[in-house]
């Protein structure tokens, strides 16, 4: 603790998980997350842990399902297509209320896509991802340091609420090297206590069953209702976010993960030019900082969402503000914007705001009738950047 080490994102993620008590990893090779299983195969045996290179992502997640049922702190990681294959197993874990931790080092998609960074798996992550009605806890780091320190938070949340938790990273966060400081002492797995649902040695107690089904009339609804109650509690208590220079901001840039790093550079350029621009960055994508964004919508005049996808993250931002404020979108589907390009989008969005602050209430009042389409009026302006980027992305 306290020492700064230069580490690659994927390795920091793996080391962070081990220090947080992970002693079981199963995975399957896929770029750009390969350093995670490689690191685990090297490190885990020394810690008395288990590493298995599974025959497929499907097998890997089901090994996790088995390991998690014993209360083991386990982990798997993959990249987009591999995470798609794991969704059935994740759904089973959610349905059986099993805690475990996984990471998606997102690459471009759909299909085989490419192996560069993207944020195209946003919806899949924050809407559960697999079949059925469930959520997973989603943390979005934006630095290698956070890649190293978030696994501990993920395990804590997963075990507190008995559900899967994940880190939504991307190819840049996985591959780049940055100084890292582990801000916690390594956790000794021997310190974990049994909670009473784990499978294993059953001497002197009744048998336990881990399952995700209940065919009895009306029973599944009761189980799901209890889960919904838990989800509501999480939405109340576990939201994490970061707001920078938002107090006096007229335009707030909303971005997560890698795009929040790029957006921060654009915000700095804007401030240097005297534009009142702030940055809001959700750290938990589920639970989503709905209330915090709604509050911010009261005092600023416009939001600009920056995302490396077609416009997925923007849906949650618009749902949070519910038509109370105009939300522009700078979308780069499987593209990586530069600070300058992002600044150009910021400037454009800023300058298209109605000139006087006094005009704002009248403006926000208008779209109330159609809360689903808050940017109906300035459609011309908002539509243009999206078109441009689509071309840019293809090149």
């Amino acid at each position, binding site marked *: 603790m306290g020492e700064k080490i230069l580490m690659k994102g994927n390795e920091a993620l793996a080391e962070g998980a081990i220090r947080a008590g992970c002693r079981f990893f199963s995975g399957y090779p896929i770029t750009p997350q390969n350093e995670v299983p490689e690191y685990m195969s090297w490190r885990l045996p020394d810690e008395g842990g288990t590493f298995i290179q599974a025959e497929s992502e499907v097998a890997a997640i089901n090994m996790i399902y*088995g390991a998690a049922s014993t209360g083991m702190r386990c982990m798997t990681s993959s990249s987009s297509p591999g995470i798609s294959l794991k969704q059935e197993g994740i759904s089973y874990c959610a349905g059986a209320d099993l805690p475990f931790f996984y990471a998606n080092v997102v690459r471009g998609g759909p299909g085989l896509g490419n192996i560069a960074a993207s944020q195209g798996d946003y919806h899949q992550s924050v809407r559960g991802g697999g079949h059925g009605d469930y959520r997973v806890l989603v943390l979005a780091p934006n630095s290698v340091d956070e890649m190293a320190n978030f696994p501990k938070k993920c395990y804590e949340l997963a075990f507190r609420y008995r559900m899967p938790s994940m880190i939504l990273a991307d190819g840049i966060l996985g591959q780049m090297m940055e100084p890292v400081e582990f801000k916690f002492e390594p956790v000794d797995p021997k310190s974990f206590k049994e909670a009473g649902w784990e499978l294993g040695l059953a001497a002197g107690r009744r*048998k336990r*069953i*881990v399952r995700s089904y209940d065919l009895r009339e009306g029973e599944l609804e009761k189980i799901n209702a209890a889960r919904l109650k838990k989800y509501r509690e999480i939405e109340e208590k576990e939201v994490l976010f970061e707001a920078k220079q938002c107090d006096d901001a007229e335009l707030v840039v909303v971005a997560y993960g890698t795009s929040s790093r790029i957006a921060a550079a654009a915000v700095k350029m804007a401030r240097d030019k005297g534009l009142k621009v702030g940055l809001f960055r959700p750290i938990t994508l589920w639970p989503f900082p709905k209330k915090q964004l709604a509050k911010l919508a009261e005092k600023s005049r416009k939001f600009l969402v920056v995302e490396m996808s077609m416009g997925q993250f923007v849906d949650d931002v618009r749902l949070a503000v519910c038509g109370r404020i105009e939300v522009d979108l700078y979308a780069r589907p499987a593209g990586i914007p530069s600070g300058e390009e992002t600044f150009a989008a910021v400037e454009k969005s800023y300058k298209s705001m109605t000139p006087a602050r006094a005009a704002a209430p009248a403006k926000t009042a208008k779209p109330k009738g159609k809360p689903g389409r808050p940017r109906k009026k300035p459609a011309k302006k908002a539509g243009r950047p999206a078109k441009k980027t689509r071309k840019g992305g293809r090149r």
Partner: protein
Amino acid sequence: MELVNKWPAGLVEMPLRYCPGCGHGIVHRIVGECLEELGIRERTVGVAPVGCSVFADDYFNCDMIQGPHGRGPAIATGIKRSKPECIVFSYQGDGDLASIGMAETIHSAARSENITVIFINNAIYGMTGGQMAPTTLIGQKASTCPRGRDPKVNGYPIRICELLQSLEGASYLERTSVHTAANAIKTKKAVKRAFQNQIECKGFSLVEVLSMCPTGWEATPLNSVKYIADKMMPLYPLGVYRSPEQREQKEGGAA
């Protein structure tokens, strides 16, 4: 009076919801008796599949987990590696093990995972209503091959023991049947041996049990018994396909 028969400690005392004439009940009892007789009930974790025996998580009197279709050996791997002191078994049907879960079957055998797999081969999908299985016989009728399995259209049945035989990691493979009392007794011996191997850390053990499905076969229980003897056994010969002794001999010979 002498007690000649009782409910095995390895089974929960409750009625089984299987069809009349089904083989699952016999194999359940065999597994339940083995758990008791080997004294491993309180350290055993079982994996229930998707299919008719999905309710095995209720029936076996040990810790149980129910998993996705075909993934039993992967789940068992995760449990066994996390809790090596536990005895872990996976109970699977032919659709589960030989179709959707073929990769997990082959790779857990290749890794020689120290687990026990009980494979019920009744040549049909029972729970979903009698569809063609990978083990369905040529000419056998099923709801998705109503004219009978035609190799030109549906290909050929898969023989799991023969398929796994070539794998060094497969420690013990035996095919048995439960269509007669004598065969059920042989099945019990095989199941017990498959658990004993795990206790002795000998690696992957699988017992394939030919079993009746009167409902899926649209046959009477009696005709189902005959079907196994006359039709299934010629295609799926009973016997030991690999044993730890064979492996030890081979390794000893090589050294």
